[in-house]
């Protein structure tokens, strides 16, 4: 990515992020209730998107050669198990990432 494109991209991402935070204060500022279908998407879209992003994160796994995705799978299971047990975000991310970095080197 060129520096010019990077600057534009950061600007766009900043404006969009702020707009989503501003939205409820502008639209519901006087106490109106949002439309039911919007409430529905607000509730169910985030888990669907996060799952889609997780699938995206694993898009480059090569199941046919090398480690056959074993490093990714072991590390991912570790992250989920740790987080399920301890609910400590930083612990789960740190242990999972370090484990992954070790696994791909052996």
């Amino acid at each position, binding site marked *: *990515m060129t520096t010019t*494109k*990077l600057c*534009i*991209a*950061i*600007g*766009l*991402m*900043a404006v*969009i*992020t*702020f707009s*989503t*935070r*501003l*939205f*409820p*204060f502008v639209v*519901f*500022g006087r106490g109106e209730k*949002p439309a039911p*279908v919007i*409430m*529905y*998407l*607000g509730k*169910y*879209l*985030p*888990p*669907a*998107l*996060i*799952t*889609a*992003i*997780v*699938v*995206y*994160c*694993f*898009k480059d796994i090569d199941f046919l050669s090398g480690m056959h995705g074993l490093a*990714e799978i072991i*590390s*991912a299971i570790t*992250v*989920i198990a740790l*987080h399920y047990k301890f*609910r400590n*975000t*930083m612990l*789960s*991310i740190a242990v*999972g*990432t370090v484990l*992954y*970095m070790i696994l*791909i*080197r052996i």
Partner: protein
Amino acid sequence: MDIKTLKYAFRTSMPVILGYLPSGFAFGLMMSAIGKGVLASFIMAVTMYAGAGQYIAVDFIKNNATFITIIVTTFLINSKHLFYGISLIEKFNKTGRKKPYLIFALTDETYALLTGTQYPDDVREDWYIFLVSLINQLSWIAGCTLGAVFGSVVKFDTTGLDFAMTALFLVILTDQARVFKSKIPFIVGGLSALAAMLVLGKSNMLLGGAALSVITLLILHKKGFGKNDDD
């Protein structure tokens, strides 16, 4: 502003500071691993101030994503914010000129602190809210910047460091799986992403998967999904 308000704001923010410093640090490290300097990390922490948004941005920069992917994905990733503010409208209306910054700085963690913590009556509420928001962002900026500085000074083999992004989204997914009784939204998102990858290829799968998720969820809603609270 008085010292007492500052003290309480700092005490409230402590758990978030301890979370933001290392996760910002990881972001800075990932940025330097793809060859981007300290300045870019700093500017992103100041202007975007978003955990998941900045992590996925590293991937956009690395893969030179198209503007349409950047715009749509950033919007959808932040779509949960479209409703966050509702419960804080009244509180923020009493904060005068501090309100725009409070809205800008309304992250998941700050939202949790502002809606879930108590403070003594003699603390000035508008300043308390402002200071909690500001302290949180300052710790995020510090984490992101220090990570980028560390990454540019200490040279080490960073191969595999980008798994931190995968791990972050797995953590969010685990949290959501605990909250939702229905597995349908997870299945919809997963299959949408897979279908998009097969049809559109890897570089467009995020955009296609997100769009397909929205469409599928709307069709399911028409058929009755999500119309009662049990789903």
